[in-house]
Structure formats: C-alpha cells, structure tokens
C-alpha cells in the first residue's frame, strides 16, 4: 500500500493526476476571479477614509499574501529535496520561483501605486515595504543562482540550501514592523477591524488568486518535467554515439 506522497512521487503518476486536476483548478480560479472582481468594483462601498482607492486592496493584499505563501512553498519543497530527496520537490521549487517573484513584484507595484494617493509618495523605507523588497531580492537570488550553475542536480540542491537560509525573512515580514522610525502608520490588525462589506470581496479575491497560482504552478511543474525528459533523451542520444566512438578508439 503506497502513501499518497509516494504515489505522487512518481513523475508519471503526477503527470496523470495533474492533467486531471488542472482544468478544475483553472475553472475555479476563473469563476472566483470574476465573482471577486464584480464584488470589488460593484458590490462594495468606497472607504470613508481612503475613498475609491481602497479597491486596490483587493489585488494588493492577495499578491502580498501569495508572495509569502509561495516562498514558504519553495522552502518546504527545498526541505523535501534535501532531506527526503523527494523527486518532485525540486521541480516544484524551480517552477514556483519565477511565479513567486512575479507576485512579489506585483505586491510591490500595487502597494506603491496605492501609496502615492495615500501617503503622497510611491515608496517609503519602512519595515514592511523593505522586508518585502528583500523577499523580492531573495527570489532574484534563487533564480540567478540556479541559472548560473551548469550542473542541474547541483544547482537544485544549492538553490534549496539558499531557500532554506532565506526562510528567516518570512517571520520578519510578518512581525517586525517597528524597527526604525518610519513614515508609515503603525500596522493594525486589518482583518478584524475591516468592514464586512470589504471582507467578502477580499476573501474571494484571495482564494481566487491562490487557485490561480496553483493552476500556474501545476502547469509550470508539468513543463519542467517534460523539459527534463527532453534533456535526458538528448544526452542519451549523444552518449550513445560517444560510447561507440570510445570503442572505436580502443
């Protein structure tokens, strides 16, 4: 009797399973996204303080959450690779990195665009913004390190080590907001104080974005598995020729 992870560990099984799952997740993401956008633009009021710009929140916050969640996923996958040598762990980590970088970038961008009307500037150097920027750098470092190494299996293990070293950034983003004097208002526990009329669209959008991410992640993993198959076949073809040549030289 195989456990679920063991069955998933087989890339062929994964390909079958993901092929069946992918359409459903994508469809769910599209539906929820449509509903969320409807709520965000038509079924929710403007904030009494922030005015209409509060609507940026419905994409900013999901992106910001995803930026952290994806990193956690990468760290988890890295752990799986290094400790359990799970065959899909590296595929997952590699596929997630550019997606995470993209969502972090979007969180930064939408945050800055919200900052201009709210704080009068695109950027301030406060703890939360800075730590998200560092998270973005970590993503860049992961991508750059992987692309700088020729040997793929070495590259995946080394990036995994870096990902685990960098995971300390997550609690920093979450908790330490009062490091040094800042223009930013002190952080409040938004989810409990927010008006229900805004909580629903935010929740729907957050779930929609998460589903969207998982759909993209599955697709990227499938691509990566195919890429590895292609590469293995290619080297095999060359190696076959080389082996004959070595015999000839003897």
């Amino acid at each position: 009797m195989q456990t679920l992870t063991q069955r998933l560990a087989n890339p062929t099984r994964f390909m079958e399973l993901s092929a069946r799952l992918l359409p459903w997740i994508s469809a769910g993401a599209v539906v929820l996204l449509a509903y969320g956008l409807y709520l965000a633009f038509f079924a929710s009021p403007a904030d009494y303080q922030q005015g209409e710009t509060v609507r940026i929140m419905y994409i900013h916050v999901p992106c910001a959450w995803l930026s952290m969640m994806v990193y956690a996923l990468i760290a988890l996958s890295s752990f799986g690779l290094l400790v359990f040598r799970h065959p899909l762990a590296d595929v997952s980590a590699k596929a997630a990195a550019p997606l995470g970088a993209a969502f972090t970038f979007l969180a930064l961008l939408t945050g800055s665009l919200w900052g201009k009307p709210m704080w009068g500037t695109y950027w301030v150097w406060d703890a939360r913004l800075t730590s998200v920027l560092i998270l973005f750098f970590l993503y860049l470092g992961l991508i750059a390190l992987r692309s700088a190494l020729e040997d793929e299996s070495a590259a995946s293990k080394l990036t995994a080590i870096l990902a685990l070293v960098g995971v300390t950034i997550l609690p920093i983003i979450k908790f330490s907001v009062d490091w040094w004097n800042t223009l930013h208002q002190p952080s409040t526990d938004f989810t409990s104080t927010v008006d229900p009329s805004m909580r629903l669209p935010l929740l729907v959008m957050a779930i929609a974005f998460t589903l969207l991410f998982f759909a993209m992640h599955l697709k990227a993993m499938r691509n990566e598995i195919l890429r590895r198959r292609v590469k293995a076949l290619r080297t095999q073809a060359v190696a076959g020729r080389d082996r004959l040549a070595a015999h000839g030289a003897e």
Partner: protein
Amino acid sequence: MKSFWALLHRDVTLAIREGGAIGTALGFFLVVVSLMPLGLGPDLNLLSRIAAGILWIALLLAALLSLNRIFEADHEDGTLDVLATGPLPLELVTAAKSLAHWVTTGIPLAIMAPVLGILLNLDLAAYPILVATTLVGTPAVSFLGAIGAALTMKTRRGGLLLALIVLPLYVPTLIFGISAVSAGAGPTGLAASFLILAAISLVTIVLGPLAAAAALKVHLQ
C-alpha cells in the same frame, strides 16, 4: 583540534600574503569612505548624520570583495578535495575558514572604523559604541558571507552573484548595526540593538558553517 588550528593558521597566512589582506581591506575602507562625500556632497551635518550608515555599508562591501574566492581558490587547486578527506568534518572546515576571514577582515575593519569616523564628522560619543557594535556584528558578516561564497563557488566570476545573494542576508545586521550607533537614543534602545546584533552573530556562527558545508558537499560531487 590541531587540524582546525592548522587550517585557521594557514588561511590567515594566505590572506596576509596573497592580498596583503589587512592593509588592503583598510585601504579599501578608507577609499570608499572618502568617496562618499564626493558622491553625496561635502555637507558636514549631513555626513555626520549618515556616518554610521556609510561606515557599515563600506564595511560590508570590503567583506564582500574579500570573501569572493575563499572557497573557489581552494577548489581550483584541489585543496578542497584534500581538506574533505581530513579528520575535520566539513562543517568545521567552513567554520575555520569563516573565522579566518573574520580575523583578517572583520577585526581590522572594526578597529579602523572609528578612525574613519573622523573623516565623516561622526559624533565623538558614538566611537566606543561603534567599535563594540562592529566587533559584535562582523562575525555575522563573515559567516553569512561564507554561505554565499560556498554556494557560488563554481560559478566562475561569482563576485556579482555572491553580492546579490549575500547582501539581502546582511540587511538585519546592517539595520541593527546602524541603529545602535545612530540612535544614540536611550541606553535601552542601544542595549536592545546590541543584543540583537550579538544574537544574529551567534546564530550565524552556528548555522553559517552548516549551510556552507552542505553547499560544498554538493559541489564536491
């Protein structure tokens, strides 16, 4: 233990002979610190306000430039292969090398920092704090840097990549290092920064060699 000291001693000797490490690090520190006023304008008030920041950034850069090849050179000439067959676990090898880096770079830079403070019109009262914080903070610089150096060992021309990977990791050290000096605020704020700095250094002294050794093991394959 004998092996540990032998390695530490060799690395210190090499650093001194090959790069004239100490002199060069100090020279670099001096040049960067004196370039800053050129870049930022000669306003003395401004300078003294940001002096701590400049000193810390220059220090990080000096460390980065000297970290670059600490593993790569050993790998290229085959030394690393032999070190790995020695009686010392690879974790202690990386610890010895990081420690050697701290001794040849961290300590001289920490001692030099207040001297350069003069150039930046740093508040006199901040000097002892500056030395103390840099001494306590620089181990983190060397040990975190060693992780980056180990990760990028086989990427020829890894300098930039190393910086890209390591600088984000330096951010907490930088922030608390500066806040300790420039706050000057209350003694409690100071003590807090100082303790956090020490904690960061301690954690990296333990974790840095582990991560670096893990990276080296991958490279040795």
